[in-house]
């Protein structure tokens, strides 16, 4: 029993040792030592500032004169005394805060000083899943991928592709409607689509969530054109009609929202309308003989399978995905 008590005391002592270290107060500076000179990085206002260095930190003293900067730079000096070859210690020179304070201050202050994410010159990879919003008869859900290159902070050029084949789904509503009203509605399936797009980002901002955290977002519009491959489902005359995929020109416009988790990762939500003139199955069946199949009024002649008119179609889809910006880091041209 006595041995157990000794073990317990030993264990308690071992546990308390590191805790004692936690509660030590910060040692005051040694008496008699001169205060280290106030220094700041030599980079001027035009030097890039790394976003990864955390833009929320106070700006260097050379760029924003003021007392708080002195504290920040004192830390820099300490580090430089220990490791003079550290990156932040290279090209460090002494700054006279009194002289710096006399310099004229550029009074212009931007409402949003630094955008959280700089996009110019970066690639965006945007995988997403799309959901049909406006087709009551056949849903065209499927995966998609967009690749964009930002020419400027607000303008990008890119391509996107959607894949639908095997994922087109006939709705129950369609069946109920057909059975009750005895009418057949021509249905079309989509295989894939590809578009060349321009993206414009006119809006950005930030939200405070629960008064506790801040997240940044931007909103964009995009538009372009490309090709979509569709084909009718054989509803009216399934015994004779077997449709091939048709290449159709499409135009697309969209509006989207991105919420940034970091400077290179965002969640995206977009509503996109793909506009094209679709070729639908003919509601009438040719009544001629089946042989020869190429006869003008043969039900086996593919020329009799399609409606004479093309039909203006809006395929509105909701796209939910993520955005990855490459390279993952960037430099600000101006400090915060």
């Amino acid at each position: 029993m006595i041995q157990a008590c000794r073990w317990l005391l030993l264990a308690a002592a071992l546990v308390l040792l590191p805790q004692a270290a936690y509660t030590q107060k910060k040692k005051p500076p040694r008496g008699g030592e001169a205060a280290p000179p106030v220094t700041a990085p030599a980079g001027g206002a035009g030097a890039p500032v790394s976003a990864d260095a955390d833009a929320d930190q106070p700006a260097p003293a050379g760029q924003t004169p003021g007392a708080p900067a002195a504290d920040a730079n004192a830390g820099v000096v300490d580090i430089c005394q220990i490791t003079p070859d550290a990156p932040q210690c290279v090209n460090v020179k002494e700054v006279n805060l009194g002289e710096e304070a006399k310099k004229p201050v550029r009074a212009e202050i931007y409402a949003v000083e630094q955008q959280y994410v700089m996009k110019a010159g970066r690639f965006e990879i945007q995988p997403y899943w799309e959901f049909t919003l406006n087709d009551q008869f056949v849903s065209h859900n499927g995966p998609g991928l967009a690749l964009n290159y930002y020419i400027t902070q607000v303008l990008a050029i890119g391509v996107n592709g959607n894949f639908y084949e095997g994922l087109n789904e006939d709705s129950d509503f369609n069946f109920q409607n057909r059975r009750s009203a005895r009418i057949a509605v021509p249905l079309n399936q989509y295989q894939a689509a590809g578009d060349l797009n321009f993206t414009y980002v006119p809006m950005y901002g930030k939200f405070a969530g629960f008064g506790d955290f801040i997240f940044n977002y931007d909103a964009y519009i995009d538009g372009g054109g490309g090709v979509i491959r569709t084909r009718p489902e054989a509803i009216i005359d399934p015994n004779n009609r077997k449709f091939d995929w048709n290449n159709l020109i499409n135009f697309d416009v969209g509006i989207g929202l991105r919420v940034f988790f970091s400077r290179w990762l965002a969640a995206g939500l977009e509503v996109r309308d793909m506009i094209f003139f679709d070729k639908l199955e003919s509601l009438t069946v040719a009544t001629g003989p089946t042989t020869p199949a190429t006869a003008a009024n043969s039900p086996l002649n593919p020329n009799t399978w399609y409606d004479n008119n093309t039909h203006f179609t809006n395929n509105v889809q909701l796209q939910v995905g993520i955005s990855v910006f490459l390279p993952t880091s960037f430099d600000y041209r101006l400090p915060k």
Partner: protein
Amino acid sequence: MKLRFVTAILASVVSAALPAWERTAQAQEIELTGPLKGAPAVRHMRLYREGRFEIAPAVSFTLLDQYRRTILVGARLNYNITDWLALGAWGAYAPDAFISTTDLSDQIDRTAPRDALTAVNVNHTGTYPNYGAAPFQDQLAKLNWVVAPQLTFIPFRGKLAIFNKIFVDTDFYVAGGVGFVGIQERANCGEGGSELVCSDPKSFTLQSTMKIAPTFGIGLTFYPGDFWSLGVEYRALPFSWNLAGFDSRGSGPNGNFPDTKVNGEDETFHFNQLVTITVGFSFPTKPKISE
């Protein structure tokens, strides 16, 4: 001896583990010094909501309509208890002039046969064998009015920059409540007694009824000024109703086949989505400013 040793080891482990939990709490302490110590996250913030009444005339548009499109005009009333919680109601009414048919309804009206096979489901004028065409839209259900007491939760607020020139305060909200929905749908028929036979042309008339359904929505409010705001909201109002007045269920396996009766079994679940645009006016006209 062995038992004591094991006891001692266990006691040591427990002793070591207990303060390890404490360390987690210690790590949460942030010692903030300097001029920001104790300062609020945002100073002089306009509290657009706290303590203010809001009346917001609203126009709502139904989405993904199968047979009818509806535009509802109404208003939202809110009292904002805090900047993040409001209590209020949304109400809207759809005049007949604001209710139209979809292209599908028009096509059915034009092309659906009026015969013995469709006599229960498609409006007609006569009886066997002389079925004449009657307007299909007369049997389509209508969404007439909605009243929805609701709570609004505003978790996010911030600002939005447009074209790098216009800056507007914005908040994001989630609203939820109970919707009392006035609809008209095809009256029950085919049960016998006082009910008409469903192939009777008179059975295609609509009957008013009320549905009680949950309602929830998300929205953005933009504050261009202290007194007024603009809003856009997406709302769902899910409940079951018989949009086309068809007899589609009631007999056969799982009741999935028509039974020549129109009743509650023929109602199908719909999410009933709307997008609403509001212009809000808040009282008092000046918002509070935080410290």
